[in-house]
């Protein structure tokens, strides 16, 4: 029961708990905040897994940029607990049941696997910015360029949709 194990358990509990809070909390603002907590937990996991770059990017891009954007939109529309539309409890119940059973089915598929896939923790240089950078601009240059098309289209889209006319 090393430190890593304990931190793994703690981070996992944190992630799960706060994501549950995220989907249950009435007000959108709270949900967003809870989601940010989840992201922090996941970043913690990244660090455990020695993927510092992703950990940082996760914080910056997700928690930083995206979530703020969300928050911004929510504020813009000044949504709050009152504006939350009325729930349909039957549908929710069924939803929880089916989602849960999906989880069970999937887990049951893996619990049969025996323990021979250890994960290397706190070691190796795969996650280092240096390595990633080299790989990204050599092997992955094509997807990298292509992703620019993605951004272009997203940009154009945002303009087309968002522009008032």
């Amino acid at each position, binding site marked *: 029961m090393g430190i890593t194990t304990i931190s793994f358990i703690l981070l996992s509990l944190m992630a799960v708990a706060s994501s549950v809070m995220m989907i249950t909390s009435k007000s959108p603002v709270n949900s967003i905040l809870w989601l940010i907590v989840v992201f922090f937990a996941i970043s913690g996991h990244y660090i455990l897994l020695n993927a510092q770059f992703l950990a940082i990017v996760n914080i910056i891009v997700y928690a930083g940029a995206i979530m703020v954007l969300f928050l911004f939109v929510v504020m813009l529309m000044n949504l709050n607990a009152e504006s939350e539309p009325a729930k349909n409890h039957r549908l929710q119940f069924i939803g929880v049941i089916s989602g849960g059973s999906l989880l069970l089915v*999937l887990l049951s*598929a*893996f619990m*049969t*696997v025996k323990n021979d896939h250890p994960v290397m923790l706190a070691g190796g240089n795969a996650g280092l910015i240096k390595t990633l950078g080299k790989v990204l601009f050599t*092997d*992955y240059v*094509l*997807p990298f360029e*292509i*992703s620019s*098309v*993605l951004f*272009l*289209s*997203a940009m*154009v*889209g945002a*303009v*087309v*949709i968002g*522009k008032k*006319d």
Partner: protein
Amino acid sequence: MNAILLSGIWGVLMMFSGVFIKSKTTPKYLAILGILILFIANACELDAFNLGVMQFSIDTKEMLNINSFNLSFLAIVFACTLLYFLLSARDVEKVGEHVGEYFALIFFVLCGVSIVATYNTLLLLFLGIEIMSIPLYILTGSDKRNLKSNEASLKYFLMGAFSTGILLMGIAFIYGGNPNGSFFINNIQLGEGPMPAMIAVGLVFMIIALSFKVSAAPFHFWTPDVYDGAPTVFTSFMSTIVKVAGFFAFVRLFENSFGRVQGQWINLIVFITVLTLFIGNITAVFQQSVKRMLAYSSIAQAGFMMLAVFALNDRAREGLLLYSAAYSIATIGIFAVLIKMKDYTIEGFNGLGKTNPLLALCTTIFLLSLTGIPLTAGFQSKFFMLMAAAEVTGKFWLIIVAVIFAAISAYYYFRVIQAMYFKEAIENNIEENEVSTSFKIVLAIAAFLIIAIGIYPEFVVGWMYH
């Protein structure tokens, strides 16, 4: 390669045309020019003119796999897009202000199509699919004043994002289960006997995600609403080109990665195929709006295309090409006529045979093709699919099921034909000035293409063996 680059570049070009060219009518000519260039460039890469292969040489690190099969598919796609532009470009202008941007988005979609047609790693599959989808979310919602359009784009977006999550989960598991730790689709080590649990799970996730993209039941629910809500001119595009691209990605992934162990997942495909045929055909029967009926019919046709995934043999590949061509041309043609109508219900077609015989004739040919009547491309494509499926031993009953549903499909396609010829027109549902001579000519050419492919399919299939 040519296709990806040029489509991307031309997308940017169109984007700027939106900024610099004030006239609303000019961009379409630019777009038509672009698609022509795309087609020719692609043909050069396919060496269709026997000038020797001409292409941008970029080291893709094997991330793209370019062969005559992919390229002939792209050729079909670009030809259909050209047809689409010639028929409907004028209607794109009517959607809204940002004509240039619309065309730009269409070209980005084509870029995505080119990627999924040639991808060799799961990463590019993922990127390609996203590049295909994101512009479509926009195009769906491009009619901003129209609440239906808004609703459609929201639904499409949410469910699309959801399916993206599933796709990624699938990729993750496949990666995890692949001892080679690689994303290359032809470098997935399945081992002997039953697949490792992770691969199995990942595979199911992939099937689900791709079924969603090609709107196969039970993951088709977005299709009718989105196709119905989107501006008709874009529905025409996404229900043809994008859908067949999805199928192409589907087939390529499964024959390169999992073809060897087909026996272990074919049941899923059978399940999906039968369900798709059932839901698509049965639900289409009762539709009153032609647009929505076509949406359901596209699901029904998807059921037939699933047979290619089911068979995964030469016949299936040929069938897929034929089906892409036949289905796309016919559907684009019908939509092109539909756009001209004020009233999208079946009654809207009443008496078209009298008021506008040529349009009626062409529409009839398209509908017959979708039904799968001999002498039309639709028959040949269905026929090839059935042949392909028949070669899979022990599942012949699936073919009989398929043809029975094909017979049912006659029911809703012929309702339109009956309306056109055997009912009297209430009021003129189509204003003449809308229907230009050039439009009629192009439509006639499309109809002729349908017949030509129906008589001699080899010249579509032939490319693949070029």
